[in-house]
């Protein structure tokens, strides 16, 4: 046996221990390269913001892209922008994902003989395209969304030069509204609706709070007009007309569950009553075509209600009626839109609530008629090159229109999508565009507004701006076409077209904004035809295809968070569903998750049902947006099943209907339903909308609020109004403990105790806050399979309760239930639920390793490194706001290049670790640094949490509970409406919820 002396032994022990320790290090650090030459504008650790414009919908909100060390990490609203004033909806924030799509095209591609896309150089791709265009220039056609002012000009210049044509295609265009504006006022343009200081808002299905004309703007205006702290009478009343309890309906004071398609008649009838009650008599001849009883019959709304609303319109100082949205855009959409405009005119709102403004630029508006004509041309072989940009027509044209079939007859299809979609599957040449955050561009969304789009990151891949692609094509064609192209590249062209303004300032502010003109216009129409539209097919039910609040026209389905964040109404994520009434479900013998077939004259669908009380018995509603076969997130590729469809595309079951002027109609079909006997469980996040009387989402009636204002009530449960009295025996929501001072729950010498307020009267459930939280805090997107197991990771979720709920004990069910809704009832409580940062937190004492503790400023800090994953804290949290990493989300949920957008200020959590909200503690730390530099304390407003910043209606407040002078403290200690969730448990939360105000039905 060889002798081992002490030294050898120690060496061996040392080496082996070292080896063990080295292999134990699981964090791989690769290629940390510091700046060799420090860029002037970048200080590592300090974010740089770039102002730009959101292109996820036509509203044109201003955005700030937050970049760190040259990489965009977050998209926020631009506080100086006249449209959104710093807020931004979920879709707008999710636009960052387009830059970091895992399946983005890395460069130009050309389809070879085997039908596979192979990478080529830009010169080769443009050369091939130029050859095809050169052979038959007049057979070239451009199809796509509005590409921006300068790009459109460049494109038009090319098209004119070679004799090609161009069609603007936007699935959710406002063609009906524009046609109606032209008809009623003789003005070509989209009216701008302004709800500022309104006292009655009637939404005829525009879905003004989620997919409407300018949702973020309207949300803010409405919330201000309804603020009960400013308006003791409750402020503006919101009336919603529509067949289902949508997001907007859930926030309304009165919901008229009208038959879809009857909006025009209803609007005219209301206008007629208003005129008869004394409003502008000159318009009487326009509304005389409809009687109240006729409208009552066609809309299935009681005549008394119509009369009451008509009188309310007559009484109102500022009444704004919003036109039908896509879901109720029927074959008579122009008539319906005109009727709504007439109602506005009768109410005297033209020029204040409704601004009739002419278009700023030519040929930017979508034309469905031209798109349908294009299909005929393609079928006739008149199109040899189709250049598709910025849109996905194969997905968004109805199957019955024959677009896809016609497209396959086109010899050369060019696509500029930056990632695969249904249309690129038909493309022979792919010339990928930059993502929105890599692009230059400009828009003229409305009068007095000129918006700039500027990049915030160098293009990640070998992509090229659409404008440069077009210029390149023009130059490759040679001759006069090449001469007609602008000098230099697209950016140079853009800068030239902005040469009349201070571009540097425009870049800093996101554009040039002037005051919105009043937009007064006289009514020139002589008659309004608002007859009820005909629907195709036989079936018993009306098929309502409605825009999904996250997917819009389907483009949002490509973004991970918009798929992951559940629909605010049904809490379904990653899937399609069909909403039917409880009675319909009984008739069909189906329960939630059972698959039904929906047959129309144009096609059929098989989809899981979501029976609910809040939908008409004669309606089946399916959201638009799912059913993609391509795309990493849109199809099932992210669940490891490439090419698998996710959900159903309801557009394929619609007839290609048009309205009176050739605009696109969505409300076109009758449907017959049948149970299939199959079941496909819906991935849902919410178990039940029955609150069981527990203190989780409270309401207060306007009268109780008024009496509380006189000091009759302190913070006792009596002021929760008559609604709660019915269930006073159910326990749970009584404030049986003495009110505590949340300010106590921090160490004595700390100047801060952080707290939050959530105003449930302002929250409409749009989920923008959830989106902000996901991106700010590096929350992983887990996918459909894990969502089915309810293992999503949101730190902030939306509880949606209907009414006070029933505490009597129903038999247990093994699947979620959601049937507390009633037709016409709008007592919906949207409750954002996140860590309450309890002063006496149940999660803390149970952790054996002190991985969670109250820090000196009263936050429930979470030490990810210390957590061993016993999960006791999550069991003991009554609010259930803790989320556990069941898998290694850190490694698996951030596919290349998504890791580039991780927020460097927030740890990415690994396998087996618990995580939760800590009030954006990284933002508090950033504010602390600034305050320290300036030798002061953190002031109110220095810290804005991500959710607070995103909220369009300013429902979320954040501040220091120890700062008794602050406006936040006043809100936090609101005696009239404030309550703490599950106060009975005495967890001493640092979050005050302000009860939703029940304003009651609109008074005549």
């Amino acid at each position, binding site marked *: 046996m060889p002798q081992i002396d002490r030294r050898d032994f120690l060496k061996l022990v040392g080496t082996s221990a070292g080896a063990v320790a080295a292999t134990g290090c699981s964090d791989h650090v690769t290629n940390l390269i510091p700046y060799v030459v420090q860029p002037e504008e970048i200080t590592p650790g300090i974010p740089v913001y770039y102002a730009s414009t959101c292109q996820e919908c036509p509203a044109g909100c201003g955005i700030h892209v937050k970049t760190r060390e040259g990489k965009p990490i977050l998209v926020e609203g631009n506080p100086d922008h006249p449209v959104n004033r710093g807020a931004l909806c979920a879709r707008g924030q999710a636009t960052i994902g387009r830059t970091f799509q895992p399946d983005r095209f890395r460069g130009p591609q050309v389809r070879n003989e085997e039908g596979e896309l192979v990478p080529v150089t830009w010169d080769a791709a443009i050369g091939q395209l130029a050859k095809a265009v050169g052979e038959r220039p007049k057979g070239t056609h451009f199809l796509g969304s509005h590409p921006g002012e300068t790009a459109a000009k460049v494109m038009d210049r090319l098209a004119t030069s070679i004799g090609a044509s161009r069609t603007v295609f936007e699935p959710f265009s406002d063609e009906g509204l524009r046609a109606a504006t032209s008809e009623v006022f003789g003005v070509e343009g989209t009216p701008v609706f302004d709800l500022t200081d309104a006292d009655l808002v009637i939404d005829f299905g525009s879905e003004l709070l989620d997919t409407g004309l300018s949702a973020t703007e309207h949300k803010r205006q409405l919330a201000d007009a309804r603020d009960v702290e400013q308006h003791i009478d409750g402020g503006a009343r919101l009336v919603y007309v529509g067949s289902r309890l949508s997001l907007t309906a859930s926030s309304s004071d009165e919901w008229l569950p009208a038959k879809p398609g009857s909006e025009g008649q209803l609007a005219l009838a209301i206008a007629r009553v208003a005129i008869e009650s004394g409003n502008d008599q000159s318009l009487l001849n326009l509304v005389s075509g409809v009687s109240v009883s006729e409208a009552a019959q066609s809309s299935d709304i009681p005549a008394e209600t119509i009369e009451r609303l008509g009188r309310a319109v007559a009484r109102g100082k500022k009444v704004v009626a919003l036109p039908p949205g896509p879901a109720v855009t029927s074959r008579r959409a122009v008539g319906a839109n005109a009727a709504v405009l007439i109602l506005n005119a009768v109410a005297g709102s033209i020029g204040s609530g409704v601004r009739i403004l002419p278009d700023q630029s030519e040929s930017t508006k979508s034309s469905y008629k031209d798109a349908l004509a294009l299909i005929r041309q393609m079928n006739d072989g008149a199109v040899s090159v189709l250049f598709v940009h910025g849109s996905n027509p194969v997905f968004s044209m109805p199957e019955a229109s024959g677009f896809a079939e016609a497209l396959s007859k086109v010899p050369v299809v060019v696509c500029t999508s930056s990632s695969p979609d249904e249309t690129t599957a038909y493309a022979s040449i792919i010339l990928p565009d930059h993502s929105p955050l890599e692009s230059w561009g400009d828009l003229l969304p409305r009068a007095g507004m000129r918006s700039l789009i500027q990049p915030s990151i160098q293009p990640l891949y070998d992509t090229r701006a659409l404008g440069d692609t077009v210029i390149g094509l023009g130059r490759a064609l040679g001759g006069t076409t090449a001469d007609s192209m602008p000098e230099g590249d697209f950016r140079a062209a853009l800068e030239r077209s902005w040469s009349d303004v201070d571009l540097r300032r425009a870049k800093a502010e996101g554009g040039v904004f002037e005051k919105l003109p009043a937009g007064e216009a006289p009514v020139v129409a002589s008659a309004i035809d608002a007859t009820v539209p005909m629907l195709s097919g036989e079936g018993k039910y009306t098929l309502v295809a409605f825009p999904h609040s996250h997917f819009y026209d389907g483009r949002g389905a490509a973004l991970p968070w918009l798929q992951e964040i559940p629909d605010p109404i049904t809490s379904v994520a990653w899937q399609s569903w069909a909403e039917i009434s409880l009675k319909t479900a009984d008739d069909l013998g189906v329960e939630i998750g059972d698959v039904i077939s929906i047959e129309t004259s144009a096609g059929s669908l098989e989809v899981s049902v979501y029976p609910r009380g809040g939908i008409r018995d004669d309606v089946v509603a399916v959201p638009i947006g799912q059913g993609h076969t391509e795309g990493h997130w849109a199809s099932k590729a992210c669940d490891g099943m490439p090419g698998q469809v996710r959900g159903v595309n309801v557009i394929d079951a619609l007839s290609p209907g048009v309205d009176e002027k050739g605009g696109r109609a969505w409300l076109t079909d009758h449907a017959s339903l049948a149970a299939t006997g199959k079941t496909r469980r819906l991935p849902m*996040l919410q178990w039940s909308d029955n609150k069981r009387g527990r203190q989780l989402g409270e309401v207060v009636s306007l009268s109780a609020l008024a009496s509380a204002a006189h000091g009759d009530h302190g913070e006792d449960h009596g002021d929760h109004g008559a609604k709660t009295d019915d269930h006073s025996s159910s326990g749970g929501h009584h404030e049986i403990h003495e009110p505590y001072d949340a300010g106590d729950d921090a160490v004595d010498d700390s100047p801060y105790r952080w707290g939050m307020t959530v105003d449930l009267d302002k929250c409409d459930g749009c989920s923008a806050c959830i989106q902000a939280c996901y991106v700010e805090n590096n929350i992983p997107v887990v996918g459909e399979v894990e969502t089915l197991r309810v293992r999503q990771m949101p730190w902030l979720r939306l*509880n949606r309760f209907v009414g006070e709920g029933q505490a009597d004990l129903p038999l247990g069910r093994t699947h979620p239930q959601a049937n507390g809704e009633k037709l016409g009832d709008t007592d919906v409580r949207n409750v954002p639920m996140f860590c309450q940062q309890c002063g006496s937190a149940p999660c803390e004492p*149970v952790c054996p390793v002190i991985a969670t503790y109250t820090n000196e400023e009263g936050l429930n800090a979470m030490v990810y490194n210390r957590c061993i994953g016993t999960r006791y804290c999550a069991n003991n949290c009554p609010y259930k706001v803790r989320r556990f990493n069941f898998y290694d989300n850190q490694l698996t949920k951030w596919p290349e290049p998504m890791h580039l957008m991780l927020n460097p200020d927030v740890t990415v959590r690994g396998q*087996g670790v618990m995580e939760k909200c800590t009030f954006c503690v990284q933002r508090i730390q950033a504010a602390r640094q600034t305050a320290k530099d300036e030798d002061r304390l953190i002031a109110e407003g220095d810290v804005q949490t991500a959710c607070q910043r995103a909220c369009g209606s300013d429902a979320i407040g954040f501040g220091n509970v120890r700062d008794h002078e602050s406006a936040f403290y006043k809100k936090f200690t609101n005696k009239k409406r404030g309550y703490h969730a599950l106060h009975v448990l005495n967890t001493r939360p640092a979050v005050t919820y302000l009860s939703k105000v029940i304003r009651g039905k609109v008074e005549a």
Partner: protein
Amino acid sequence: MTPPPATPIANPEPLSPEQDSKINRDILAVMSKPTLGYWMCLGTALFLMHLAGAIWVYQVYIGLGIGGYTHPLFWGAYIVTFVFWVGIAHAGTLISAILYLFRAKWRNAINRGAEAMTVFAVLTAAQFLGIHVGRMWKSYFILPYPNQRGLWVNFKSPLMWDTFAISTYATISIVFFYIGLIPDLAIARDRAKGWRKFLYTAMALGWQGTSIQWKSHSRSVLHLSGLATPLVLSVHSVVSWDFAASIVPGWHATIFAPYFVAGAIFSGFAMVLTVLIPVRRIYGLEAYITNYHFDNMCRFILLTSIIVSYAYATEYFIAWYSGVEFEKTSFYLRAFGPYWISTWIMIICNGVIPQVFWSKRARTHIPTIFVVATFINIGMWFERYVIIITGLSREYDPAVWGIYIPSFAELGIVAGSFGFFCTLFLIFLKLFPVIAIAEVKELAIHEKAHAGVR
């Protein structure tokens, strides 16, 4: 019958069986060459154990997601099975320590088996602490060791108490088991050859059977009994506080400590019966483990069954009487909600079936006892399942209620825990006397002296 003379270690020749007493021969016969049936049992147990091991390795690699956990249900089959095995571990110490202190002589025939079971059950249970946590590679954080980072553990956490309770109990059980084993090891040593001789010689610590050694031995047993007795009550009390110290409706109850201790003794005795009945039958130990023993154990089971049933009733009464809606809902849904099957299995197996032991005939009819004991084992697993799962699935926020269904991976590891337990027990059968020879002899001598008096 005289005790065999203590043989010096130096004696090179083992005793031949003919020279030996009947008790020695009978009991040591269990340790003879294994039969095919034994190998099959051991093979099955080893297979289950390794299957669970493989699943566990995969789980460590991929994450706890392979379990059936969902958002509101963060604990599942692992914790259920952990509590189950801790409960099983109770009968051994109860029989050895408490019945020893009460001088209940009938314990002598069964205490060795029960003690072995206790040790193995505690070892099985302890593994679940590692299996359950999300980052088992960091589970040493739970130990209060001095470190440069200045980190300390949270002594307020019931999981911390649990760690200490289980480790203390495991230590005491092993020491108790080993001390009791020493005289028998000496007997085995004197008859063994080859590696067994070496093993027993080392483990017998030079036992000679001298009166000084016997005196020390009985002193040790007495003192250890005194130490172990409070542990019997404390361990499962502490385990119950894992739940009772929380605020989860259905967990947060003051009755939990006595309720869990009674349940533990109940399940422990059932498991002793489940294990000993086949052993007795296969190895022909009817002369040592008699109807008298079974009768006594069944009486214990009957008593604890009644206590447990009373606890069930109390839980429901308090849920109703308190008027707290959270509790009422939780308990209502426990009985009539999605988990009603588990609840009724629990009530029938633990509350109803054991009532047959009111009959003396049932208490002495071995097949009946075996069947009832099996039902109790099932019922007690479901009791923990009902408490943990229904409690978590119906908490404060109805928007995030949920349903937990154990996954195959979890069930595999649960099955593997039985494999692990059986493996240890089967090896124990062949390695050590399953009945405490010395104590049975003591009893035999005692009986002889007071023939007919008992």
